[in-house]
């Protein structure tokens, strides 16, 4: 499968090239900056991401989606995810600037740069149309995050979280690779369309195929923190610097979904009957486990970690539906999830009292509404959206997922999903209760930073707008969704 290298190939992966080169430029810029001017690295990062976004914008509706000898595909599906990742990265960088400064992190320049490198991996995951590129994208995405989780080097908990994440992450990569190599052994190709063709021919051993599907599902579900592959998530989320937690929760999970949906729908669709049950079980267990265990948490980052396990379950249901409608619902859900989660994390960072890394307890929110009405109100909006209460966007996201399920006749799964939503409402609304119904126990000393206000403003507008008028975006997602 030789291919003639052309300018088209370079243009197709231009966003990835811009991000990789931009990250190198950030490393170099970091060398020339004084310790208290490191935020310029982050500003350069934002500029680089915007450049890449422009390059991606020019690639919408390209005539020749397959580039680099079918290693990458530049379809609207991948571009939709890429824009979600650009948004998530820009917002996370904005969240980080103030945090990194007040926590007095060492290696602040590298802190921002590693996020941009991770973004590069996510872009590759969204666009990869070959198991090799997808796997390498996953590694490129995960490696910087391992380092970022352990960034608070003098905090033993941060070390522990990073250690767990690295070891279990390596283990999951091994499972994923084993599954991929079995698929290669069965079909003789790593190209997604080629795998689909070989599976459709129907000459492969069903037992080995099931084994490889189980292994790949386990590997991917680790990356998107689905039960029972979630063990690393609560510790890593709690231990990581808060902006990194936000980044992990939204962007790396989104990238894992971009890849799993493409692999399972584009390559493994002929084996739909085999994987649909496996994923349905993982999704239902994730919803129940994540949302019930979250009730017992008193640390808000840990609570959001368990809630993110539940959200992974909801989004997986879209894949279980196995239709273009389901994948469009996942795309919409991931975007909404990104906005509402980043908004909630922005408020958490705001609550961090000066000089103290803690302040993550849910009891800290008691009486917030008394003197800080606006902050309490936006937190309420994000929490209601996470719980899936209309008219916030979180409700529309869940609605589309459940509609995709019901249209395929999976009524029971939809009912189970709605049931867990009711459980989940409890722990989100408990924080709202603390904010509005309790007396404050002390003075609130909120972080005032322009960057945080921007993040919160964008998230609030997004969450409300997508909740009230989701139609046009959903239409975009449906057009971009994978065709079967």
């Amino acid at each position, binding site marked *: 499968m030789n291919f003639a290298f052309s300018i088209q190939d370079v243009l197709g992966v231009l966003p990835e090239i811009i991000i*990789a080169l931009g990250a190198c430029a950030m490393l170099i810029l970091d060398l020339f900056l004084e310790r208290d001017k490191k935020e310029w690295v982050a500003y350069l990062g934002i500029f680089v991401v915007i450049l890449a976004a422009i390059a991606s914008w020019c690639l919408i509706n390209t005539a020749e989606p397959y580039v680099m000898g079918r290693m990458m595909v530049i379809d609207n599906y991948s571009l939709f995810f890429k824009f979600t990742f650009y948004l998530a990265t820009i917002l996370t960088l904005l969240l980080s600037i103030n945090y990194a400064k007040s926590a007095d992190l060492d290696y602040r320049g590298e802190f921002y740069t590693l996020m941009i490198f991770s973004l590069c991996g996510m872009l590759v995951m969204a666009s990869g149309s070959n198991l090799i590129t997808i796997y*390498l994208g996953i590694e490129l995405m995960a490696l910087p995050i391992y*380092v970022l989780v*352990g960034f608070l*080097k003098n905090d033993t908990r941060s070390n522990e979280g990073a250690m767990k994440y690295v070891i279990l992450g390596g283990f999951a990569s091994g499972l994923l690779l084993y599954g991929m190599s079995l698929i290669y052994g069965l079909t003789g190709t790593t190209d997604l369309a080629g795998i689909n063709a070989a599976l459709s021919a129907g000459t492969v051993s069903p*037992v*080995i195929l099931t084994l490889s599907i189980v292994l790949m599902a386990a590997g991917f579900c680790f990356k998107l923190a689905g039960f029972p592959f979630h063990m690393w998530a609560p510790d890593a989320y709690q231990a990581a610097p808060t902006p990194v937690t936000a980044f992990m929760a939204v962007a790396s999970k989104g990238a894992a979904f971009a890849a799993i949906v493409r692999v399972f729908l584009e390559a493994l669709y002929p084996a739909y009957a085999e994987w649909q049950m496996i994923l349905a079980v993982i999704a239902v267990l994730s919803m129940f486990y994540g949302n019930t265990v979250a009730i017992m948490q008193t640390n808000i980052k840990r609570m959001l970690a368990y809630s993110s396990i539940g959200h992974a379950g909801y989004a997986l249901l879209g894949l279980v539906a196995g239709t273009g409608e389901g994948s469009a619902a996942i795309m919409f859900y991931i975007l909404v999830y990104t906005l509402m989660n980043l908004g909630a994390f922005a408020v958490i960072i705001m609550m961090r009292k000066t000089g103290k890394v803690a302040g993550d307890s849910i009891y800290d929110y008691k009486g917030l509404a008394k003197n800080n009405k606006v902050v309490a109100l936006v937190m309420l909006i994000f929490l209601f959206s996470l719980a899936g209460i209309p008219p916030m966007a979180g409700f529309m996201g869940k609605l589309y997922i459940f509609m995709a399920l019901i249209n395929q006749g999976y009524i029971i799964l939809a009912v189970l999903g709605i049931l867990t939503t009711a459980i989940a409402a409890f722990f989100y609304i408990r924080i709202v209760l603390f904010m509005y119904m309790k007396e404050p126990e002390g003075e609130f000393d909120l972080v005032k930073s322009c960057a945080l206000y921007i993040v919160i403003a964008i998230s609030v507008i997004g969450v409300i707008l997508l909740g009230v008028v989701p139609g046009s975006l959903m239409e975009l997602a449906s057009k971009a969704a994978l065709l079967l």
Partner: protein
Amino acid sequence: MLIEYILFIIFAVIAIMSSLCVVTLRNPVHCAGYLIVTLLQVAALFLLCRSPFLAVVQVFIYVGAVLVLFLFVVLLIDVKKASMEIFKPKHRPLAYGVLAILLIETLVVIFVGGLEKIRLAAPGAEVKVETIGRELFTSYIFPFEIVSVVLLVAMVGAIVMAIDRRG
């Protein structure tokens, strides 16, 4: 063919025995030694699959680089203290349970999976280094470049983790 079959059995048995030693022995140096034996056997298996390049790479990278580095690290720490803890007695039933499940799964795959019917996508002729190089820099140029970025990230990450700027 018969000779190859016998060789395969020999290499595979030694590989499994030595990898059992890797996980059961207490002294990290002995474990590393047996890991070298295991990896050499795997390299021999690659040779039987007609991929001399993979065999050589296996020896260079794993035996030559990774394990030597590992032994250096072991030299720097106190081996007596570092000798590994085995499972606590109360965790043993769980470990045995998982082992039993894995064993059953493996047996099912071997005997019910129809392994004998699978045509593996084996290369027709012996794979030359030149072919691999050509493929790597034409068809697989993009993954190759991603790997270079991954290595850069690994380097930056290692520096960030290892060096304490405040002394």
